[in-house]
């Protein structure tokens, strides 16, 4: 039974967003473009949902950085993906 809960917890945690994009006032930003990157690869870009969240899996080759951008906001420096999840990124106007 305990193992079942463990698996459930694992499934749930893997489904919840790992990155949140918010503006300076803390409001979530929808449709921000998130590109997972390793040193030499670009993964296909993802977009944030209405809560500003996006699910990024650790993949092979490993993801090292996230490039996060949205029209109307300043480019954010590349985000280190090895930080404890979930990562909250603040985009400035």
């Amino acid at each position: 039974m305990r193992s079942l809960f463990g698996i459930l917890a694992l499934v749930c945690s893997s489904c919840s967003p790992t990155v949140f994009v918010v503006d300076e006032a803390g409001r979530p930003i929808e449709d921000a473009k998130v590109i997972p990157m390793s040193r030499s690869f670009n993964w296909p870009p993802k977009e944030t949902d209405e809560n500003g969240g996006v699910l990024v899996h650790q993949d092979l080759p490993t993801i090292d950085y996230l490039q996060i951008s949205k029209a109307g906001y300043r480019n954010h420096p590349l985000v280190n993906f090895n930080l404890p999840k979930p990562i909250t990124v603040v985009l400035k106007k």
Partner: protein
Amino acid sequence: MSDITYLPGKEPHEKEHRLIFRNVDRKGWNPKIKTYLAEGGYEMAMKALKMKPQEVIDEVKASGLRGRGGAGFPTGIKWGFIPPNNTKPVYLICNCDESEPGTFKDRYIAHQDPHQLIEGMVISAYAVGAHVAYIYIREEFPEAAIILEKAIAEAKKNGFLGKDIQGSGFDLEIYVHRGAAAYICGEETGLIESLEGKRPYPRIKPPYFPAAIGLYMAPTIVNNVESLCHVVHILRMGGEEYIKLGTPRNSGTRMSVFQAMFLRGTVAVPITFQELLYDMCGGPKDGRTLKAVIPGGSSSKILRCNETFQIGRGDDAEEMTFWQLPLDFDTLAAAGSMAGSGGVIVMDDTRRMSWVLNNITHFYAHESCGQCTPCREGSTWMKKVSDRIEDGKATPTDVQVLEDIAYQIDGKTVCAFGEASAWPVEAMIDKFRDELVGETSDDNDTRSAERIAQEQFLSSVPQ
């Protein structure tokens, strides 16, 4: 040719016309002279020795053979540059210092068909009147140097080299000279300096055109391995026949060595990119799309796969998509790139361009010889700036800075290395500026690491 079988897995594509590479990866083939003689080897050398040197030169001129080293200079015309009233000895040098990233054609000839090269050198040396020839081979081919030396000894034993070759009265000695891992030795005057035992600083042209003032200040002809091998086939087929193999002004076959992460092989042109990448090489793997192609070694300008080009001038101009471009010297030059040494590097849509840029700038910063200031300093600066962009520590102005540095190097150096290092950077920024700028941020620290350390130290000291 149908009787030739190749090793399993190495069969040529049906559209491929193998001329120079005929014996590469061939079943039952070895680099011994016996095998080569059984295939009619050295017949053309004998034929050439019965002709007059000028006739050989005329034949090569008629064939329109263009140098396969990268610049594409017509070989026959180069041979004609030796001053007519020359009294000094003439030297022939075979440039086997193949170091252009993405190019790997000479390796196969030197390793698998050395006698083809030696025969080509005998003919060429006879045509230009050289009695001493050197093969400048790069240090990274230790095995090829041994194979070539063995082949030379064999040829000497069979009377195809040395004094009075086959009773013709023509003497020729070929020596192998190993370089020492310097890319700049591929530049012909740099190569000559290196052969003289100095640092390979390229000489300024004029006055040091090798055909007039070259090795030991004597007339010298420097030719690429592939060009010298083509000479054998030109004599066999005749210049008129040879010219029909290619497109006008781009006669003959051409090896285009081809590499990408998921596709690899060697092919012969003229064909279009569509045929090359999709029909012959099988296209990208895993449903990916192709993003960019470097068509002629890393120094040529990168081409985006979704571009269209205006080829031709005035009324003849026609619009071509990237996929319709044929891989020949002139069309690629019109498309703003170059055919160079024929090494095609392909990148698919997952490739991160700042990383590619950084890899290329690291190569040029390492290989710059340091003779001219713009190139020596500029290549290192480009390396540092592209390091920053790749690490995500750059500001948007850094991309502009990088472009400015590249244009400061271009055309301000003694040899073509300056252009070779600047062009890929210029083209990369031109075609992928959005992607590069997207990885930068205004919020990044513009201070250097030393500056940050200094400020930290000063703030920790009590006032």
